[in-house]
């Protein structure tokens, strides 16, 4: 007992992950820059940066600022667009034995559907994460994620054009995350991921001005972990689909806490910046935790707290 290697595999819809650890969209680029540090095939899945139909220039600089145990970002979803992703980024990722989840963004319901339709027919894409929760763009995104109607519209439009596993990424910037989660599932979402960043501002007291060019940004990092844990726990009680939990995960202990709260898998975001090896160290740490607590299958710990 105790010494046999535990089963770390989990399924998120049709996506088979060899372990429950992925990376959070926007904190890993398209993987290429991180491949110098480790074999990307060790990850449970790779979730890439938000991708829109056409290239987006993003917001003005400064775009990031550090806060107590966290950071604000207002990148504004700068990305090279769908064609560049499919033609220039994806071929690199196909070399690795790892499912690829593409984070999809759009300024209209139609844009979400068109990006998703193309990706659904593209070899090497295993899942779509619908970002209806980015707080940093004026049009689209959070405008949809804020209301059950908006979510329902985006998810069903995408559902009707693809059979790929659909993961809806929820915003914490809402009063009732549970009702939004239920709506996403009813509209056809196979899984949920949460949380995206929390809307915040930072002020420079000496220059008496906002620190971010965009004024507001999204808060991530250890500072948001309690909120993320609470939301994962609440949503896990209310829905039957798999959940990918994220928000301030820096080490294996954090990751285990999310799974105990009800997450089937976890994503490492800001933690990648602090320790580029964080995701693989977390995989190893989860395995050690399971062995030291005599658990043979990771699925056994999901949601055991608060049931």
């Amino acid at each position, binding site marked *: 007992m105790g010494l046999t290697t535990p089963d770390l595999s989990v399924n998120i819809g049709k996506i088979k992950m060899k372990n429950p650890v992925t990376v959070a969209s926007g904190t890993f680029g398209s993987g290429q820059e991180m491949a110098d540090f480790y074999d990307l095939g060790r990850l449970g899945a790779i979730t890439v940066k938000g991708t829109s139909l056409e290239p987006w220039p993003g917001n003005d*600089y*400064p775009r990031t600022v550090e806060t107590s145990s966290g950071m604000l970002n207002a990148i504004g979803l700068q990305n090279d667009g769908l064609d560049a992703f499919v033609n220039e980024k994806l071929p690199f990722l196909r070399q690795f034995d790892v499912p690829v989840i593409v984070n999809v963004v759009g300024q209209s319901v139609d844009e979400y559907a068109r990006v998703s339709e193309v990706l659904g027919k593209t070899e090497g894409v295993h899942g779509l994460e619908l970002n209806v929760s980015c707080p940093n763009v004026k049009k689209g995104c959070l405008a949809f994620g804020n209301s059950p109607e908006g979510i329902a519209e985006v998810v069903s439009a995408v559902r009707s054009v693809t059979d790929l596993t659909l993961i809806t990424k929820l915003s914490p910037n809402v009063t009732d995350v549970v009702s939004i989660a239920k709506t996403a599932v009813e509209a056809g979402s196979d899984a949920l991921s949460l949380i995206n960043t929390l809307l915040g501002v930072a002020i420079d007291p000496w220059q008496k001005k906002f620190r971010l060019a965009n004024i507001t940004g999204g808060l991530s990092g250890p500072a948001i972990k309690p909120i993320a844990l609470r939301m994962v726990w609440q949503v896990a009680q209310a829905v039957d689909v798999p959940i990918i939990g994220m928000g301030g995960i820096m080490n294996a202990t954090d990751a285990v806490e999310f799974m105990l709260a009800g997450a089937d898998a976890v994503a490492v975001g800001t933690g990648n910046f602090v320790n580029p090896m964080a995701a693989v160290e977390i995989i190893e740490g989860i395995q050690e935790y399971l062995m030291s607590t005599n658990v043979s299958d990771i699925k056994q710990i999901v949601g055991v707290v608060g049931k």
Partner: protein
Amino acid sequence: MKGIYNCEVIAQSEVSPGVIRSLLRCPEIACQAQPGQFVNVQVSATTTDPLLRRPFSVHAVYPSEGLFSLLYVLVGKGTAMMTKITSGENISVVGPLGRGFDLGNSPDAQHILVAGGCGAAPLHFLSDRLCALWGCKNVKVLVGSRSKDAVLCEAEFISHGVEVEVSTDDGTYGHHGLVTELLKRHLDSSLSTLHSPTRIYSCGPNAMMREVARIAHEAGVSSCQVSLENNMACGLGVCMGCVQKIKGAVPGDTSGTDWHRERVCKDGPVFNAEDIIWD
């Protein structure tokens, strides 16, 4: 190749008020780093405040000893914590990162290095390499600082064997005024007589580099490179946080926009001054 290294701090010393030189053991970085590249330092492994790593240029390398050094100014929380690290302790360093200076390919080019404040940090490593590559007689360094006690690396540049000129804002040492005035003077006096190409390399406050770029452009200097220090979150090219506006549309962009954004941490920190849109 870049990596995460656990580096032993060999020594830290205050070289002028509020400026610290740190000597670190890391054979990989010492052997691989190129002038203009930087490292990302975790200032404390035990706290999440400060959370992010701090970027610092490689100031010098000693490949045969497996050592490299940083030169940093005490600015805020992170650098204050760094000063507390004692010899023998280890810190986590990611690097070498970014794209460094292009040292040119002409044996008879004149190289002018323009440093503002702590911009001397990467230029020190650069002057060392330029000397090794092209000979010190072709290298000149202009060092600008606030006042006499803030002048950085003058002795080290001289010990490389390069010619150094200093300016101070308050006139307590060297030329009274801006380092860009020294540059202008130098170009005015030498360009008419020199037939060899001139290459300028600069690191310092943005306002200074912008002026360096303008002067270089007006003088028709063949290459002017600047090293930017935009705020960074990841330093790895994955967050898109450190972007700088660069002239020219991205290939395939039909929207009519004649600029795009590049990542300072990955596509830079060294850029051709001509390409930069200074805000």
